[in-house]
């Protein structure tokens, strides 16, 4: 497939690996922001190709993983209602709430459906006028334009039996929080490619400047990641900071103006709680006043929630890059994708899921133990 195969070419990867080796003279700690990048790195063994001086730290770019437990519990409560058809992306189904998950609600008779696109929900709402279709709108900036379009279309077409449970989070405030932490060891960043396809590069220059850090906006294929790492290492080695765009085929400096317009129309910025991290000011989206009619939290108020976070789950530390999945005592033992303690083990962008699904540190193969 074009724009995929050529970015997985082993010969090209080898060249980039040699260039990284040649460029590296000191120890560097680099964080890839996006969970999709983490999965690619683990799947293709990118981290194992790097010289030992370079450590890759996995970032919080997994929107399912950072959705607060309270919101998961609210979703479960709403999904259990008789009149509701509850829709979400597939990997949300196994995310553990305080006592249950969407899959269990479905097994117990709840009408829970997996959708590929938020537009699928509008069709469902039109075909089921007597039911309430609720969509779990989870995502970073990448997914925001699609979710915004669905809500905008619902208002335009008067699809009133549709609402969204919003859990949208933003990358730049999360980076600021992580880099500001007293325990931060991250020296360079691989920015999230598709987030920047939507939002452009503009927000990252002040961050690079404030923290004197190189930020290389990077794609997701092995060649992209290796080239991103090479460019980041080169900047680190010469003491440079700033923003570079490795994923230029997918990112324009200004981003997508059409996407930004629909986001600005439907959403506004708000404080958000990040599971495992805590409250980060101005770090998420909520529906703007003109669209609050479609807010599922207002339409289906849920009270008396007793939130119960798992004792053994260390996903908070993993999402901040302080711990690697295999360093959690429960990894592969009490916690597996079949019986997860937290979201990072079940999300398609969770670091623990990546390590488990690609067989890392499960005793089968001699992987490097960094």
């Amino acid at each position, binding site marked *: *497939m074009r*724009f995929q195969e050529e970015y997985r070419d082993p010969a090209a990867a080898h060249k980039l690996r040699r260039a990284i080796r040649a460029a590296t003279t000191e120890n560097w700690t680099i964080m890839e922001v996006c969970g999709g990048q983490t999965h690619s790195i683990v799947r293709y063994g990118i981290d194992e190709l790097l010289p030992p001086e370079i450590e890759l730290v996995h970032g919080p770019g997994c929107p399912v993983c950072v959705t607060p437990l309270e919101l998961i519990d609210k979703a479960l409560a709403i999904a259990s209602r008789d009149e509701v058809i509850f829709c979400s992306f597939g990997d949300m189904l196994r995310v553990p709430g305080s006592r249950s998950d969407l899959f269990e609600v479905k097994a117990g008779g709840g009408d829970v459906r997996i959708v*590929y696109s938020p537009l699928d929900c509008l069709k469902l709402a039109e075909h089921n006028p007597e039911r309430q279709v609720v969509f779990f709108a989870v995502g970073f900036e990448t997914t925001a334009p699609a979710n915004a379009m669905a809500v905008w279309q619902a208002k335009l077409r008067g699809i009133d039996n549709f609402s969204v449970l919003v859990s949208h989070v933003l990358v730049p405030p999360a980076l600021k929080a992580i880099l500001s932490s007293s325990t931060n060891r991250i020296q360079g960043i691989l920015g999230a490619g598709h987030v920047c*396809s939507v939002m452009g*590069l503009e927000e990252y220059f002040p961050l690079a400047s404030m923290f004197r850090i190189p930020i290389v906006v990077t794609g997701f294929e092995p060649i992209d990641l290796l080239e991103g790492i090479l460019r980041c290492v*080169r900047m680190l080695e010469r003491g440079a*900071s700033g923003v570079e765009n490795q994923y230029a085929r997918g990112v*324009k400096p200004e981003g997508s103006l059409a*996407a930004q317009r629909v986001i600005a129309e439907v959403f506004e910025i708000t404080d958000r709680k990040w599971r495992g991290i805590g409250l980060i000011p101005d770090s998420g989206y909520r529906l703007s006043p003109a669209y609050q009619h479609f807010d599922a939290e207002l339409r289906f108020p849920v009270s008396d929630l007793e939130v119960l976070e798992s004792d053994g789950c260390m996903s908070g530390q993993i999402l901040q890059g302080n711990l690697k999945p295999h360093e959690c005592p429960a990894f592969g033992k009490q916690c597996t994708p079949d019986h997860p303690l937290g979201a990072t083990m079940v999300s398609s962008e969770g670091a623990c899921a990546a390590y488990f699904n690609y067989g890392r540190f499960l005793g089968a193969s001699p992987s490097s133990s960094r």
Partner: protein
Amino acid sequence: MCLGIPGKLIATFEDRGMLMGKIDFGGVFKTVCLSLVPEVAVGQYVIVHVGFALHIIDELEAQQVFAFLEYMDDLDELQSDESNGCELGIVEMDRETPIADNQETST
């Protein structure tokens, strides 16, 4: 968050006022909303995320990665031709974006 797949636009049509497209993902076909890339033309490649085309792939930029790798090849050849042990240093070559996009400052 970031699971975007490249696909080729092979047809467009309208559905309830929205611009839609038929996308070819290497033999698998899906209907995708093109409202976010209204200027897209049939034959172009787009990045698709949750049923929406987010971005038209810049084919010229896509080539840059490989041009850079070819340059590294050339340097390698030169290096292996050198018999006096002189270090060429691949680190000299950088595929950097133009200054306007790359506000680099040295610390």
